[in-house]
């Protein structure tokens, strides 16, 4: 990946500058930008980091500290209330000609009420913070695609955490050796992507440890526990199945016994039916009942006949004189009807007529002695007549009572006769019934039938008991089946767990082997990378250093602590001059980049600042070899970029620029001029 161009607008001292980085000659990957100190070399690097990460990551010169990003001249000329944008635009191209366009913009607004003159003229308000815009043109495509998450892609290109290993500030380079060795080791890890491998190992190890917990909800279990559980459940299940078989056989036996009982029951039922359905017990019971009724009726009949006889004996004499009674009674009745009895007048009535002397017809008899005598004679005759009449009337009434009793007897006799007939009829019928039952019972062997009946009842009892047992047995079997079903589910779950466990064991073994291989890869690459960096650093340092025989070796330990071995055999890094340390740093960085997993452009700020003439030429001669295939931008001063250096670098230089800087009251203006 190379930078095709950078366009800067109002960024620090750059008002409107475009720097093209590519030449037609693909072998020329060096770009040289020459500028005096303070002209804008570091700000050019910062323009790139600001565009990529939104931050100026390299140390600002003192004169720019506290100033806004916007060019101070532009700022000064801004009218109050107006807004001006700061923009950095980059185009990058990869080896397949895919392109990435990046642009970051920051608006600055000058507040109202400023005159445009005076010390407050540098006050601006960031007006607009436009995020990074990224467009991508994939190889072979014509349409640009707007990238939704440009920060993500930027970090894929050059992660911010290691950008300083690609955008070197050589004034800081020698300080790297003063930093904790662990930081360099971390940087090497990141640059060579060993960090990825390290993270993969850590994550894989964690994943491996959590496999069982995630899948089985518990920590690693002993396979034997799971197998024992499966085995135990299988044994329980087998045992339950045996019990079930046994109980089912028992049930079958019970059902057979019940079938036998039913057969016996049917047999005795049939036998009893074949004897006209004679139920001896029932018949005997019936006969006893009828006999009892018969006896009652006979007793009742005797009583009725006795009552009837008594009544007849009592009424018989009267009945014998019934005719005389009737005649006498008729005679008296006739007299009565004739008015002969009783007398047809009252004694007192006659006495009253005599007393009053007036007849009922109204005639006055008071003066008629004859009438009075007759009346008095009537009174005298009346006493005798009346006595007879009373006697006859009493007799008549007695005769009437006797006659009624005779009539009543006749009525009662009819009732007695009816009752007697009814009872006699019942006795007759019951006698027949008893005789019939006796006949039936006589025809069968009562004992046999009783025996059959008893057997029938016994078999029924047996059948009922067997039905009860069968019901109970079925309930038992249902319970056993439910237990079997439960055990089968438990065993199935245990088997599933076991299968899952086996699967997890397989995953575990796979992860284990992957971890082993990953660690081996990491160890070997660490060793290779370290050895390679050590080898290249040593080769490059010894090649570049001007005291050819003073130093014999460069060593890098596992923590990337660098040692330079003096010819005396002593470690000499502490005694290196600033120039020597810069050569060592350049050698180390070049070596680091050669093993880097990142295809990033390199920008080196002031690479030869502290290095004397001879090694400078050496570096200029060898650096293109050390960083072969990399796009390298050198930001140099006139003092660094001597004629000899230029000549040595010439075959590799694609573009050469000069920054013309014009100092201003505050800040300055820089113009980038292509000089080759």
């Amino acid at each position: 990946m190379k930078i095709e161009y950078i366009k800067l607008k109002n960024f620090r001292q750059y008002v409107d500058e475009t720097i093209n980085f590519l030449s037609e000659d693909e072998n020329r990957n060096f770009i040289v930008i020459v500028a005096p100190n303070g002209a804008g070399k570091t700000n050019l690097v910062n323009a790139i980091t600001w565009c990529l990460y939104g931050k100026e990551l390299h140390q600002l010169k003192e004169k720019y500290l506290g100033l806004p990003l916007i060019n101070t001249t532009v700022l000064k000329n801004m009218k109050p209330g107006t807004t001006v944008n700061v923009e950095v635009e980059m185009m990058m191209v990869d080896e397949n000609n895919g392109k990435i366009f990046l642009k970051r913009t920051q608006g600055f607004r000058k507040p109202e009420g400023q005159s445009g003159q005076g010390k407050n003229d540098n006050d601006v308000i960031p007006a607009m913070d436009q995020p990074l815009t990224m467009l991508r043109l994939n190889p072979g495509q014509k349409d640009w695609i707007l990238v939704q998450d440009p920060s993500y892609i930027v970090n894929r290109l050059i992660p911010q955490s290691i950008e300083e290993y690609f955008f070197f500030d050589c004034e800081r380079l020698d300080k790297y050796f003063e930093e904790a060795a662990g930081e360099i080791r971390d940087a090497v890890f990141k640059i060579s992507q060993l960090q990825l491998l390290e993270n993969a190992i850590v994550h894989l190890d964690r994943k491996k440890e959590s496999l069982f917990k995630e899948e089985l909800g518990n920590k690693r279990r002993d396979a034997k526990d799971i197998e024992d559980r499966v085995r135990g459940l299988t044994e329980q299940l087998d045992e339950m199945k045996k019990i079930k078989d046994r109980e089912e056989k028992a049930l079958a036996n019970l059902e057979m016994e019940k079938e036998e009982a039913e057969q016996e029951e049917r047999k005795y039922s049939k036998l009893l039916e074949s004897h006209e359905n004679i139920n001896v017990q029932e018949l005997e019971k019936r006969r006893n009942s009828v006999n009892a009724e018969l006896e009652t009726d006979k007793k009742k009949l005797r009583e009725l006949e006795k009552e009837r006889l008594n009544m007849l004996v009592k009424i018989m004499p009267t009945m014998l004189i019934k005719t005389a009674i009737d005649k006498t009674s008729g005679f008296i009745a006739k007299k009565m009807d004739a008015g002969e009895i009783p007398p047809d007048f009252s004694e007192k009535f006659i006495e009253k007529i005599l007393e009053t002397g007036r007849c009922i017809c109204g005639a006055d008899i008071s003066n008629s002695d004859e009438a009075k005598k007759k009346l008095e004679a009537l009174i005298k005759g009346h006493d005798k007549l009346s006595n007879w009449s009373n006697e006859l009337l009493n007799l008549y009434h007695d005769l009437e009572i006797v006659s009624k009793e005779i009539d009543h007897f006749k009525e009662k006799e009819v009732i007695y006769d009816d009752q007697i007939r009814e009872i006699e009829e019942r006795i007759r019928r019951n006698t027949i019934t008893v005789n019939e039952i006796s006949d039936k019972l006589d025809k069968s062997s009562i004992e046999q039938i009783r025996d059959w009946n008893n057997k029938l009842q016994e078999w029924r009892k047996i059948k009922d008991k067997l039905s009860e047992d069968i019901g109970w047995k079925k309930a038992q079997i249902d319970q056993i089946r439910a237990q079997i079903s439960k055990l089968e589910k438990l065993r199935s779950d245990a088997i599933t767990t076991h299968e899952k466990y086996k699967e997890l064991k397989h995953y575990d073994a796979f992860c284990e082997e992957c971890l082993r291989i990953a660690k081996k890869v990491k160890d070997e690459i660490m060793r290779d990378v370290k050895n390679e960096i050590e080898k290249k650093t040593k080769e490059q340092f010894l090649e570049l250093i001007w005291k050819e025989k003073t130093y014999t070796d460069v060593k890098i330990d596992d923590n990337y602590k660098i040692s330079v071995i003096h010819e005396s055999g002593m470690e000499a890094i502490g005694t290196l001059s600033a120039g020597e340390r810069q050569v060592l740093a350049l050698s180390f960085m070049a070596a680091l980049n050669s093993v880097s997993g990142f295809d990033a452009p390199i920008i080196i700020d002031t690479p030869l600042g502290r290095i004397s003439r001879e090694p400078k030429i050496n570096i200029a001669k060898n650096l293109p070899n050390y960083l072969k295939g990399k796009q390298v931008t050198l930001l140099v001063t006139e003092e660094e970029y001597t004629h000899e250096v230029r000549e040595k670098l010439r075959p590799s230089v694609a573009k050469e620029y000069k920054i013309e800087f014009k100092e201003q009251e505050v800040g300055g203006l820089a113009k980038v001029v292509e000089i080759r």
Partner: protein
Amino acid sequence: MSETINRRILEKIEEMECSREIKQFLKEILLIELRIFEGGSIRYSDEYSKAIKKYAVNYKEV
């Protein structure tokens, strides 16, 4: 700049004496780590689970 895994690591994995599944798995988890490193919002645990299941299926334990 890198949008892929360092070739050195990939070559080293290829050199290892192990099954193809392990090599493919390691390359895949390195890509997962690259995405995580570059700020991708990825749950490594889920991604690792998928990768393990994908490659362990055909892995034969020695």
